[in-house]
């Protein structure tokens, strides 16, 4: 078995035992990327030189007997939405094509101080807006299980690179399902932490009250390891919560006694693919056979999740993305052209407003523009109460559904998506159909609870199916331990796509 087929936890043990160097491991991944990423397109930029340099430094530290961080020598891929000092961070947008942040995101700082090796930047939907990674301004990413299909999104590159063994660990972000959905469609594990668990400092905002950074990996224990490094209070993020980070990687193998799982009936009603439903039902039976109690629960407002989300997220986005106006950083339209137009049409719109409008229309892709428009509309005079304020109230109702559910059960179990990976281009002309991809995932973001997606089967066409577990806020430890119970009893996580 090749080294890159081993899990991160196994690789770490080999590194610690001196049976593997970080340079060897990093090189193996670089070779694999070289070999397969041409057909997958997971990476926007591979940082080979700096990765090998970092790896060599860590190897040297190890042989000198210096103390090392928790990820010492392990390569990690980063979604191109996290700011990294003095290197491009594009967010999948033309707008930030040449943007080089003068600082590191806290999550990136944490990786560096854990002695991880940063392998490169993964592709994503522009500004994390999308469910297929087709909205990237640079390239599409193919699903490693079927390259005619999408990998999910917005963290499509992050999931695809793990699924195709191009990185053992990767960082994604999840605003409405953007970690869990691609993890499900690519057959890997992805966790969206509780809102406030991981610092958002340096995460380029899409919808600030929903965004969370989280780990993607092939196995639950690898996920636990990466979350342990990412989590923790950050005084630079007012919305990060000051709480102890549990030692997830230490406890992940402890099964939970007397586990009660809640099932929401609506999850299996109309719209869900029969094979997906079957895989998820079978997973529920596995839990039963492991001693878990299954309880039917009500989430009466779950059906309003998409509507609520597609008001709140665009509203916040319309404001968060106002900063991209060509004045202080990022793309600016050709100024001479603006002035020439001004001379021509003689309307009373001044040069600055023209520059703004032209810059933003050229720099943003159509999905981003659509969401900015929606959010601007929903916040504007006369519509605020009917849309934005209403959505905030329904958000409370959704949270109350969760609170009531977690009084009765430990975790909620169900599907991640209604369907397996769809064909490229299938939903690009129908925004509403694309938005409905997030049906089972958005409510966790709205409520701020944690959720994990893990492989639970394959369709007859060989496409992965994901299982979602959701926990009450700050119960990631429970989430990971329960997920590990399932993983120990099944082997869906160890299947590999065939790539030439």
């Amino acid at each position, binding site marked *: 078995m090749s080294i890159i087929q081993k899990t991160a936890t196994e690789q770490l043990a080999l590194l610690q035992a001196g049976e593997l160097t970080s340079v060897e491991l990093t090189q193996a991944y670089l070779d694999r990327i070289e070999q397969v990423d041409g057909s997958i397109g997971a990476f926007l930029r591979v940082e080979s030189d700096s990765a090998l340099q970092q790896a060599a430094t860590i190897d040297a530290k190890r042989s000198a007997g210096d103390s090392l961080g928790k990820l010492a020598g392990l390569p990690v891929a980063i979604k191109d939405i996290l700011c990294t000092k003095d290197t491009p961070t594009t967010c999948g947008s033309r707008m930030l094509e040449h943007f*080089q942040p003068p600082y590191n995101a806290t999550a990136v700082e944490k990786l560096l101080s854990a002695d991880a090796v940063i392998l490169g930047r993964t592709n994503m939907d522009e500004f994390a807006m999308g469910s297929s990674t087709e909205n990237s301004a640079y390239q599409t990413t193919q699903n490693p299980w079927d390259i005619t299909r999408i990998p999910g999104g917005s963290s499509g590159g992050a999931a695809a690179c793990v699924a195709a063994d191009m990185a053992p660990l990767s960082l994604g972000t999840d605003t409405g399902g953007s970690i869990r959905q691609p993890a499900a469609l690519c057959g890997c594990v992805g966790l969206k932490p509780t809102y406030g668990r991981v610092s958002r400092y340096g995460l380029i905002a899409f919808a600030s009250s929903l965004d969370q950074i989280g780990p993607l990996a092939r196995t639950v224990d690898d996920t636990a390891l990466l979350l342990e490094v990412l989590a923790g209070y950050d005084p630079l993020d*007012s919305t990060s919560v000051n709480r102890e980070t549990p030692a997830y990687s230490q406890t992940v193998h402890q099964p939970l006694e007397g586990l009660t799982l809640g099932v929401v009936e609506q999850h299996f009603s109309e719209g869900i693919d029969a094979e997906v439903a079957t895989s998820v039902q079978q997973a529920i039976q596995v839990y039963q056979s492991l001693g878990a109690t299954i309880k039917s629960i009500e989430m009466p407002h779950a059906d309003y999740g998409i*509507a609520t989300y597609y008001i709140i997220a665009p509203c916040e986005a319309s404001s968060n993305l106002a900063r991209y106006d060509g*004045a202080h950083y990022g793309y600016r339209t050709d100024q001479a052209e603006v002035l020439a137009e001004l001379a021509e049409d003689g309307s009373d719109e001044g040069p600055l407003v023209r520059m703004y409008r032209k810059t933003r229309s050229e720099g943003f892709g159509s999905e981003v523009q*659509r969401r900015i*428009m929606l959010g*601007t*509309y929903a916040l504007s005079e006369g519509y605020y109460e009917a849309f934005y304020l209403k*959505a905030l109230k329904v958000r409370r109702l959704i949270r109350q559904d969760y609170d009531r559910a977690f009084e009765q059960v430990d975790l909620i179990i169900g599907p991640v998506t209604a369907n397996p990976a769809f064909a490229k281009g299938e939903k690009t002309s129908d925004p509403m159909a694309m938005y409905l991809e997030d049906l089972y995932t958005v409510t966790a973001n709205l409520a701020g609870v944690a959720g994990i997606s893990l492989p639970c089967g394959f369709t007859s066409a060989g496409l992965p199916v994901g299982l979602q577990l959701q926990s009450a806020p700050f119960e990631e430890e429970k989430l990971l331990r329960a997920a590990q119970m399932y993983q120990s009893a099944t082997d869906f996580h160890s299947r590999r796509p065939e790539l030439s």
Partner: protein
Amino acid sequence: MSLTRQDVEKVALLARLKFDDEGLDKMTSHMVQIVEYVDKLSELNTDDVEPMAHALDVFNALAEDEPRASLPREEALRNAPKNDDEYFRVPAVLGE
């Protein structure tokens, strides 16, 4: 609550975006479709519900008033599409 092409044009100015005729038609039809969908929230009675802007029950993230180093000016201006080594440069605010 029907959304017209004119409304969309007004919103585009507010959002500092600009569409050509075809783009405006497409945007209008997409927005109409989405607004119709999200309007399903009006089915719910939310009279006594407190709005929820944050998914957190924490308060008072306050920092001490202690200065930290600012960025060197070259760093601050480095990403600017146009600058003169001292200032950011933008097209004139007022048109003549």
